[in-house]
């Protein structure tokens, strides 16, 4: 039983990371109807920027976290202004091809500039673990999870209470009606893309000390998050959160009792089951693209 609870705790931590990436991806999909194939590479960019700041520039972990998140968000906003802004509704395939191209440039650009070997990031929290009621809790991971939870709560507050957040939700719900009441799509979509990509950068930066940082780290986690947003329902933010935690816990438990190979496959297998049983995802409104 104790082993099981330990696995669930680890799983919730993993799920929180998936949630940060999945919510950003879902936000961008909701506003632009673009599946961002470069999203994982922005996660990698966040980790790379943090690694450079902490190891080369000697800046502390928390200031570096803020700088990396903002930097990746700015890159995301620029990508919107230069490229994504010119897309019309229904140009679904073009959006995928474009973001794959952006991802190739990011991954191989970072590999060319920084080399493709793995790098470790040591912070003051590395190798520290806390004992909470008899359970082993890794300090660095806990910090990553807390940062993620704060970011998600902040996003929830923005979407619920601010005018710009309400405009974003209105835009995702009904485009035409949003136009009619005077919401400017370019402003809203730009902010949504910047926030979504900054969240991916934050996830990468927060986890850089936990996992090794390397240029190809973005694709595997992105593909898993794709499965998660299908399970949660495309474009649904609560769905993305719940499905992330669900997959995180399932993976951790499967990995603990079975094999690591099965752990990596579980999200994809669940996705196919969900598609057969609930085609619109667990929380989807059944958007058809």
């Amino acid at each position: 039983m104790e082993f099981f609870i330990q696995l669930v705790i680890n799983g919730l931590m993993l799920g929180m990371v998936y949630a940060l990436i999945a919510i950003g991806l879902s936000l961008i999909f909701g506003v632009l109807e673009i599946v961002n194939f470069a999203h994982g590479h922005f996660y990698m960019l966040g980790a790379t920027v943090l690694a450079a700041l902490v190891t080369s520039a000697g800046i502390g972990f928390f200031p570096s976290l803020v700088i990396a998140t903002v930097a990746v968000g700015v890159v995301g906003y620029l990508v919107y202004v230069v490229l994504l802004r010119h897309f019309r509704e229904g140009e679904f395939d073009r959006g995928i091809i474009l973001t794959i191209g952006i991802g190739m440039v990011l991954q191989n650009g970072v590999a060319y500039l920084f080399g493709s070997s793995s790098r470790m990031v040591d912070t003051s929290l590395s190798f520290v673990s806390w004992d909470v009621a008899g359970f082993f809790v890794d300090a660095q991971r806990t910090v990553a999870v807390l940062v993620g939870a704060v970011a998600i709560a902040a996003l929830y507050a923005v979407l619920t209470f601010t005018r710009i957040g309400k405009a974003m939700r209105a835009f995702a719900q009904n485009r035409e009606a949003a136009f009619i009441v005077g919401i400017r799509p370019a402003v809203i979509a730009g902010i949504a893309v910047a926030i979504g990509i900054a969240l991916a950068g934050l996830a990468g930066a927060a986890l850089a000390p936990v996992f090794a940082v390397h240029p190809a780290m973005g694709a595997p986690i992105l593909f898993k998050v794709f499965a998660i947003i299908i399970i949660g329902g495309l474009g649904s933010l609560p769905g993305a959160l719940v499905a992330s935690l669900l997959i995180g816990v399932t993976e951790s438990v499967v990995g603990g009792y079975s094999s690591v190979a099965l752990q990596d496959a579980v999200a994809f297998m669940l996705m196919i089951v969900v598609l057969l049983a609930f085609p619109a995802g667990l929380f989807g409104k059944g958007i058809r693209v």
Partner: protein
Amino acid sequence: MSVSTPFSTSSDAGVQPRLTWPLVVLSLAGLILLPSIWPSSYVVNVLILAFIFAILATGLNLIFGYTGLLSFGQVGFFGLGAYLYALLTMDGGVSPWLSILLAGIGSGFVALLLGYPALRVSRASFVIVTLSVTLLAALLARNWVEITRGPMGIPRLPAPSIDLLGLGTFSGHDPHVFYYIALAIAVASIGAIYLLVNSPIGRVLRAINLDEPLAASQGISPKKYQIAAFAVAGILSGIAGSLHVSHLGIVDPSIFDPYYSEMLLIIVIVGGPGSFWMVVVSSLVFMAIPELLRMAPELRMVLFGMVLVLAAMLFPTGVGGYFEQRKLAMWRRSLRS
């Protein structure tokens, strides 16, 4: 051969329809004679890879260019075909030629089974499900060690050989012999797809792509056609995969490398989705580029990424689409005068 009328938007984009067949025959004759004129085995090996990519790209062109479904499963079926070939020849004792055929059929059958859940909801989930299939296949190849030998792969694969009566047997392990085997299989499979896309079935696929509800209202069941096209594209990928590893002599999980997906996508996008011959030409060009442009592989992939970004921004119908538009403009002008 289909009759080309102005209304069937002929797929031989790029050149005047009258010029297409002489050009195809001429290029084919050139390719047949090339090893005699330029017997470098380096050139021969580059062209073999180009033929394999031409088969793979024609498969993606069928499912994406003609049917309008962006599939990331093609590299998954490519790898599946490769492993089927290895297992059939090494463990099953099946002959290489029959194994290539069975690898194609096996991959097509798996595509047929996956088509239904993949097409269940939307085009977005089709993209993600087909991508996941490739990832799952790679996971299986790495971890199902009893069958696939895991990351070590299966070495010493046989190659098909040609048995000419009276002249003896020519082993496919010789690149100059394998060149003709690859060329023959490429011509046969690409030719079959050419006949398919120019048949009434091909027109139905294009109708579904242009306007699915309208096609459905004409009594066409879009899903059946889409699943069938996905299966046929799977057959092509399986054949390409088995051909590739029979040439390499080894199969291992790197057959699922993202490099293949990225090259495949760039070939079809730049050639022009839905432009039959331009995609074939594009395969030859993009396999030759790395040999001509010697630079760090990362830098080359950055350039290719930029090409993909530019293509998506500026010319989403590719080179073939550009010529198609030129041709339509010429028709309009000739109708006006």
